[in-house]
């Protein structure tokens, strides 16, 4: 039987929810409400608790990549003098905001990005941090930077206590800053209530990821990168809980019926390192499916830390712990341990390491992780040269050549389950 791509039924709801998010943000902006730009892991919960709208320019890069317009936007950034070596997600935003004439911006996907009234970011990604400094000067709006130290192994109560205390102090300062800026009083009970919802949505998301341990997996990495968005955009709000509840139900149905999102027979289960190559999503799904191979898990899918680290009774501490404990914030040893567990839990047959050409943050240590994991698990691995938003840094023939050869190796070895 021929392999067939079976998108989740939730895809329609996802589109509606994402469209509504952008419509609401634009409406709020036009009505004079405050809009903050946040990097992916900024303490957005506090902003929401103070009725400040949140926009994620990094996520906008993903939307533009999937829509096939990101390379053009990157080129617009380069025309302004930005180097092609700079992160393509950042270049995508610069191209949309500065490189596109004001009159044309509304023709961009979701009408472009509304201008910020204030900016928040973490020190996690140096590229984003530097760009946020630039935006602060450009728009003449305040910037708040949260420190986020790297955990060398993994976050633990003992090793992290000092950082948690510092993080809480920083959040308290941030609250004072926001109170002065907005003239509004911060209500910690409201923050606790939103954390109850966020923890529930997060728990449902982790449940959904765990369901992918089933054979066949009901959702691929290529699905997960889309279906994480309601949680991302509506964190701490009932929409994210409702969406993730329905998503989990659909995945449970698929598990019961043994339905894979990509293949008729799941022959090989793969780990995918880094985010997918946004502008090639559909083609890559077809390519892997042609071999009966499914990327079933990625570290990036665990982007928001564990619900176990969330305690609505101690909201500030929870926010700090979540930020410190995410797998991506671990040093090499911690990440290798986390991935080694994924290899077993998800019954993996091989590792696909996507090397994002313009992301130094994720490329650092990728070879070391690959070497350690192949030695520890004996699984074969392949490195794919790619990028998230700049298609000029990717080659179809190179990708196909490597995947074809990698699949030959997997075929020689056979699936671990046979």
């Amino acid at each position, binding site marked *: 039987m021929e392999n067939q791509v079976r998108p989740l039924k939730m895809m329609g709801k996802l589109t509606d929810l994402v469209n509504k998010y952008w419509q609401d943000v634009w409406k709020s902006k036009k009505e004079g409400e405050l809009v903050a730009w946040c990097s992916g892991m900024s303490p957005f919960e506090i902003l929401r608790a103070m009725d400040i709208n949140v926009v994620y320019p990094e996520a906008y890069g993903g939307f533009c990549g999937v829509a096939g317009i990101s390379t053009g936007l990157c080129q617009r950034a380069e025309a302004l003098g930005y180097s092609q070596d700079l992160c393509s997600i950042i270049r995508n935003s610069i191209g949309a905001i500065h490189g596109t004439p004001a009159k044309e911006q509304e023709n961009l996907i979701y009408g472009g990005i509304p201008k910020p009234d204030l900016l928040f970011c973490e020190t996690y990604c140096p590229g984003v941090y530097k760009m946020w400094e630039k935006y602060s000067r450009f728009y003449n709006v305040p910037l708040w930077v949260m420190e986020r130290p790297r955990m060398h192994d993994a976050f633990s109560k003992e090793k992290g206590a000092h950082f948690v205390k510092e993080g809480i102090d920083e959040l308290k300062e941030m609250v004072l800053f926001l109170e002065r800026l907005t003239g509004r009083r911060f209500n910690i009970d409201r923050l606790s209530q939103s954390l109850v919802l966020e923890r529930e949505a997060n728990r449902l998301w982790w449940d959904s990821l765990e369901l992918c341990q089933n054979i066949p997996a009901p959702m691929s990495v290529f699905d997960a990168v889309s279906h994480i968005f309601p949680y991302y955009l509506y964190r701490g709000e009932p929409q994210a809980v409702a969406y993730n509840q329905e998503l989990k139900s659909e995945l449970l149905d698929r598990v019961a019926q043994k339905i894979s999102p990509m293949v008729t027979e799941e022959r090989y289960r793969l780990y995918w390192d880094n985010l997918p190559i946004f502008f090639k999503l559909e083609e890559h799904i077809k390519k892997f499916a042609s071999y009966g191979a499914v990327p079933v898990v990625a570290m990036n899918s665990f982007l928001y830390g564990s619900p176990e680290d969330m305690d609505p009774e101690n909201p500030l501490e929870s926010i700090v712990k979540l930020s410190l404990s995410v797998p991506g914030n671990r040093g090499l040893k911690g990440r290798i341990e986390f991935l080694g567990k994924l290899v077993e839990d998800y019954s993996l047959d091989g590792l696909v390491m996507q090397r994002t050409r313009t992301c130094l943050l994720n490329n650092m240590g990728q*070879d070391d992780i690959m070497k350690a994991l*192949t030695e520890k698990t004996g699984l*074969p*691995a*392949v*490195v794919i*040269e790619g990028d998230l938003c700049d298609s000029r*840094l*990717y*080659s179809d*023939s*190179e990708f196909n*050549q*490597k995947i*074809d*050869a990698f699949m*030959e*190796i997997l075929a*020689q070895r056979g699936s671990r389950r046979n």
Partner: protein
Amino acid sequence: MSYTAGIDIGAAFSKSLILNEKEIVSYHVMPSGKNYRETAEEVMQNALDKAELKIKDIASILATGYGASNVFFAGQQATEILCQARGIRQIFPSVRTVIDIGGQSTKVIKLDEDGLTKDFVVSEKCAAGSGRFLQVIARVLGMPLEDIGPFSLKAEKVVKFTTKCAVFAESEVISRIAEGEKKEDILAGVHAAIATKVASLVKKIRFEADCAITGGGAKDIGLVKTAEEKIAIKLLAPEEPQVTAALGAALIARGKLKEKMGSC
């Protein structure tokens, strides 16, 4: 007599090879040009002519290489990695690592004791570590490609290149010529630059001996010698290093044919 053929349509050169049940009957190598489909027909026809055979005499044809999908008369395809591994083990059964310096990229393939592919690495999307680099430099120096290897052995020093990019290296070579550097010393520098990239790939894959070198780059004696120095190992080079993937393709075709006949 049953014949099988392998066709390897590479980015720079295309190769065909015909096998009978015991040995290689003929082979042909020619530039790939711009029309892979026509080249595939031509390279096959040349091998057939040399063997005094007709296409209908070939029981099975397997295509490989960058342009494999253009070989419309081949019944099957396999990757260069697989074909290269199969071909080199036929020539050197002890080989555990293959360095293939092709026109488009350099690949290093690690084999297990049974000759199956264990791991592979491919050079980045860049011409610096590939045969294309040599082509560019040969053109700038106004020398035939086949002459640059022997000529480089006359070098008295190695001219250093500051770039890893083939395009920038072209202008750097022009600058060195203008500065009065000798051609052979420039070539030694080019070989050192490529060999350094190759050596880093070989070390990355944690190579095992014996180690063989194939592809157009293996015909450049200066490059092979420099690579041996950088990797600190003697490299085994087939007599005709450009046709190992085509040989592997023909062998795989023969194996599949036998399987098919056996199952009838």
